[in-house]
């Protein structure tokens, strides 16, 4: 029991300290002024909006494109399938930071620099999501597809009406993992977003913490605001979250 509580202090202590710092003034009295200040003066509301846009669109597009891509990969035989899965597997070891300069010029050529799309599009298709969903498709009994074909459904209708509803738990798992990954993204948004009005929360807060005049209380309040969405999501969907995380790591 003592060790359980000791670990609790280690895990939650720093968070509790930030919450305390954010919710008190310099005399230790409870106040919400720091939140109001961070929200208004430190532009946290703008950063939060940008983060929500980036994460929301990344999750949606990632589910759409990965579930489309994984479908024939999991269930059909075609020329070049082996080569595609080999390439997907090989990308697991790449330190993606090394590609950022060529990636930056791709984004500049497409007019995506300094835009939220420049964060969204490069992060919405990855090997992890594709392999994760391929596994889910493979666990659907073959007979269901056959009877759908006998009923004369088009291949697109089978994907949409038969396959997708059956892999819903995996889609939920992937959605949560993608949410947390995208919400935490830092280095790439730092490079591609130049104007502070386009910063996401992670970039905005690191910018704030680097300012000489940084107000600690604002920073603490901003940090709490930045943590709330993903912590709330985790608390609401714990079971999906953890099973998705473990499956993703084992398959990846």
């Amino acid at each position, binding site marked *: 029991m003592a060790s*359980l509580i000791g*670990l*609790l202090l280690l*895990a*939650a202590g*720093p*968070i509790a*300290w*930030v919450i305390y710092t954010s919710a008190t003034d310099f005399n230790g009295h409870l106040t919400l002024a720091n939140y109001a200040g961070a929200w208004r003066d430190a532009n946290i509301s703008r950063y939060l909006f940008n983060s929500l846009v980036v994460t929301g669109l990344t999750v949606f597009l990632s589910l*759409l494109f*990965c579930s*489309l*891509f994984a*479908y*024939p*990969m999991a269930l*059909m035989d*075609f020329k070049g399938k082996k080569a595609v899965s080999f*390439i997907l597997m090989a*990308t697991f*070891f*790449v*330190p*993606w*930071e*090394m*590609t*950022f*300069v*060529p*990636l930056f010029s*791709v984004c500049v050529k497409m007019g995506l620099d300094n835009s939220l799309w420049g964060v969204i*599009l490069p992060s*919405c*298709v*990855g090997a992890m999501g594709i392999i994760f969903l391929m596994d889910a498709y493979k666990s659907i009994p073959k007979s269901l597809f056959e009877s759908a074909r006998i009923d004369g459904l088009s*291949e697109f209708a089978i*994907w949409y009406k038969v396959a997708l509803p059956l892999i819903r738990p995996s889609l939920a798992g992937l959605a949560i993992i993608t949410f*947390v990954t995208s*919400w*935490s993204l*830092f*280095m790439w948004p730092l490079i591609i977003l130049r104007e502070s009005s386009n910063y996401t*929360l*992670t970039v905005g*807060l*690191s910018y704030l*913490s680097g300012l000489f005049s940084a107000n600690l209380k604002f*920073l603490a309040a901003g*940090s709490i605001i*930045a*943590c709330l969405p*993903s*912590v709330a999501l*985790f*608390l609401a969907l*714990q079971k999906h979250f*953890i099973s998705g995380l*473990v499956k993703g*790591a084992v398959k990846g």
Partner: protein
Amino acid sequence: MMSKRNILLFMLPGGLLFALFALYPLAGALKLAFYDYNVFSAPAFAGLGNFREMLSNANFWNAGKNSLLYLIVTPVLASASLLVAVLVNRKMRGINFFRTAYFIPVVIPMVIAGITWKLILSDDIGALNRLLTSMHLIKEPVYWMTGADLAIFSVMFVTFWKGIGYYMVMFLTGLQNIPSNLYESAQVDGATDFYAFRRITLPLLKPYILLVLILSSTAAIKVFDEVYVMTAGGPLRKSETLIYYMYANALNDFPPRIGFACAVGAVIFFLAAAIAVLNKFVLSEK
């Protein structure tokens, strides 16, 4: 069966994005490793020049040394999270509360974790130094992040703090797959808890131990966010890891040295793959 045209239609949007934003830049980066490129003039072929220069550059070796030192976090994380997993893998009222609480650091963005610990560990106003002073454990502030010897360990501690819940969950899954009758018969035979841990738990967890070692060592060799927000590689490059060194060459130096940075990236790639292979090799030998 799907027609070829349909297969293509399903795979086209994702495939296009992956090719354009992942494979094409990767090929470009591997090519640039053999070029001199500073953004302002066209890339000039340099052969193995970047790699040769790297080998004779003291700062590269310094970063490599720091990255290898950073790998210490891997066995510490793996054993600590295994212990925590064993600790919370029991039927007890309220145990779910502890599991949930230990996991929360995992979903906090690393940058925020870094900023938080930076505030806690800062010399003069940091909460930790104030706490230790008020408990009369120290007289002078400890320079957690600005002291040349301590800085990298402070950054490592944040990696540890944020990682422990993640790997705990991996081990917990493995522990729950072990049939409980194995422990019951060991108990009947009069085995101690430690004996059962060594003879039943550890061997059956081997695939999970391997997974955790690969994941955490790959993450350790690629560490960036916590270095960037906490120490920026300082003081005196004492916490500059390989990825940070790559970043500094490409984006902090003027003129930027893109080709050289890509060559450093290629080295990190091989290092990450080699460490994963090494882990697998060592663990399947036993």
